[in-house]
């Protein structure tokens, strides 16, 4: 029984990360109707940014969250203004934005190879190996910190989207951009801000993930896939839905380790996706992502 509790707790902690990771992807898709294929690239960039700041200046990764996210936000806005905005809106832009952002991802990947080499990296702080005893289970400090921070971020997001003017504007644009222009909401600016926000969330999640896992320039592809599974399962527009979907994914992954050899757990996410598609393409909550 002890092992099951351990795994369950692991799953919960992991779910926090997955929810934060997925939210950025879902936000951009919900508002701009664009799939940000650079999501993986920004996750990887966030990981490297945190690692670099720690390796060069000894800055604790959890402290560098704010500057890294802020920088990623700016990068996101720039990507939107410079590239994405030029694409045709709507159906015709779909595949093109996909390919465009994929191109950006490739460039980021190459940059990472050049700057940091293709070797695996980890962030090792003084407390990385410490564990805390909580209700009879030993939990690593990092996992707890990541979970706590993820919860904070999700809470902040929820408040932003429901209590602030910006949040309401974002939700309004997501529902009906044309009506928004009619009532004076600066739609283009909202698009840019949302893209920036989604990008920042990706980088943030990447940084958090870097404190838990090792990474290299190829990091991000699996995370993109997992984010996608969470978005499809959880639907759009609901933090709660995203959270539950993240929990399901994390639980399936964690418990799959009991049954499957380690190298197959990466394939678990994909199998889960196919199952969801076959059984319940509408997802579990929130707005349906699929037709």
């Amino acid at each position: 029984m002890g092992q099951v509790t351990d795994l369950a707790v692991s799953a919960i902690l992991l779910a926090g990360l997955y929810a934060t990771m997925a939210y950025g992807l879902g936000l951009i898709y919900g508002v701009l109707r664009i799939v940000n294929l650079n999501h993986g690239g920004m996750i990887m960039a966030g990981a490297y940014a945190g690692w670099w700041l720690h390796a060069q200046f000894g800055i604790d990764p959890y402290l560098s969250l704010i500057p890294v996210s802020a920088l990623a936000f700016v990068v996101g806005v720039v990507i939107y203004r410079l590239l994405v905005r030029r694409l045709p809106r709507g159906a015709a832009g779909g595949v093109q934005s996909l390919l465009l952002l994929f191109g950006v991802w490739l460039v980021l990947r190459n940059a990472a190879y050049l700057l940091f080499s293709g070797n695996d990296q980890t962030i090792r702080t003084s407390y990385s190996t410490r564990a805390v005893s909580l209700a009879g289970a030993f939990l690593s400090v990092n996992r707890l910190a990541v979970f706590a921070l993820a919860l904070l971020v999700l809470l902040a997001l929820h408040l932003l989207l429901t209590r602030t003017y910006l949040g309401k504007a974002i939700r309004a644009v997501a529902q009906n951009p044309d009506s928004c222009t009619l009532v004076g909401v600066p739609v283009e600016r909202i698009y840019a801000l949302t893209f920036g926000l989604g990008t920042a969330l990706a980088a943030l999640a990447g940084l958090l993930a870097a404190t838990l896992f090792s990474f290299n320039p190829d990091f991000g592809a699996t995370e993109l896939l997992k984010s996608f599974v969470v978005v499809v399962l959880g639907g759009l527009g609901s933090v709660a839905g995203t959270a539950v979907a993240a929990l399901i994914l994390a639980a399936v992954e964690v418990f799959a380790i009991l049954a499957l050899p380690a190298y197959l757990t990466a394939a678990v996410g994909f199998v889960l996706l196919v199952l969801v598609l076959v059984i319940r393409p509408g997802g579990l909550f929130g707005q349906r992502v699929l037709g």
Partner: protein
Amino acid sequence: MKRILPAWVRPRALIAVAVAAAILAVLPFIHGNRYWHNQLTETLLAIATALAWNWLGGYLGQVSFGHAAMFGVGGFVAARLQIAVGVPMIAAWIGAGVIAGLYALVWGHPTLRLRGPYFSIATIGVGEATRLICTYWVWLTGGSSGMSLPVQVQLKYQLYWYALALALIALAASYALRRSPLGLALLAIKSDVDAAGDVGVSSVRLQDLVLFLSGMTMGICGGFYASYYSFIEPGDMFGFARSISFVLMGVIGGIGTIAGPAIGAVIFVLLRNSLIASYPQLYLGLYGLLLIFVILFEPLGLTGLYMRVLRRARPDLGVTGIAAPESAAPAIGVTPPVEQREAK
């Protein structure tokens, strides 16, 4: 007089291809240069793969970032069939192709329920998952160290003509899939899959057909690759870089056009060989920049550029003058692309 060919085949196209085929067939005897011979073989194989990718990515508008999965499956199955069971080469390719095509159906059929770009993300997962599983499936692939086929002395030289045949078959299939009545149905599906169903198009069945053909052709190409190099390993066969190369060839040449990807393949092979020589550590980034550049300035790649030039030179030809009727940005069937305000 009874026509031998279906009505939708333009005699001019047929003659042009026949001439090109004849020239290519005798070319090795003219140049006698081993290096060029190998380059051409690789290019012809690349053409076949690019065209096969385009049936799904261009004609149906479902961009796959994981097509290396079928390429790899084909390669390893073909190699295994020859080594373990002694199947002759061509039969092994075809058998491997069928299995690759079926594999494409297995993951593709449910995944195509995803409309728009979400399918594409799923294909990244397919590629990666396939790579991981096959890397550890030692019996099939020999693990990460790969597997070798017995080298036959003259085979590599002769494979040139097999590659030529492959490329020609793929080109013929591309032409048929586009110009035949089936092609219209595929375009309708691409534009608006539900409305297509409303006028009698069996979308699911046709999508399955394209999935299978695309996967099977990829698989056969994988088998060819295995016979050509006599050594294959999972990281290369199933690699993300390989999947990206198919996307790039299609996009550079002209996604959704009939022969565009073939041109894209030629350009791509040239670029790759010169890049790998000069800047081996920059090729991913350069591919990325190329993608960005093409999408921003001419989404239909070189074919789009060609049509633009032609339209300026011959405005009388009109929009439907050349090749594919899609001169506007290819419409992807996510939402009805044509909307209007209704005065109620």
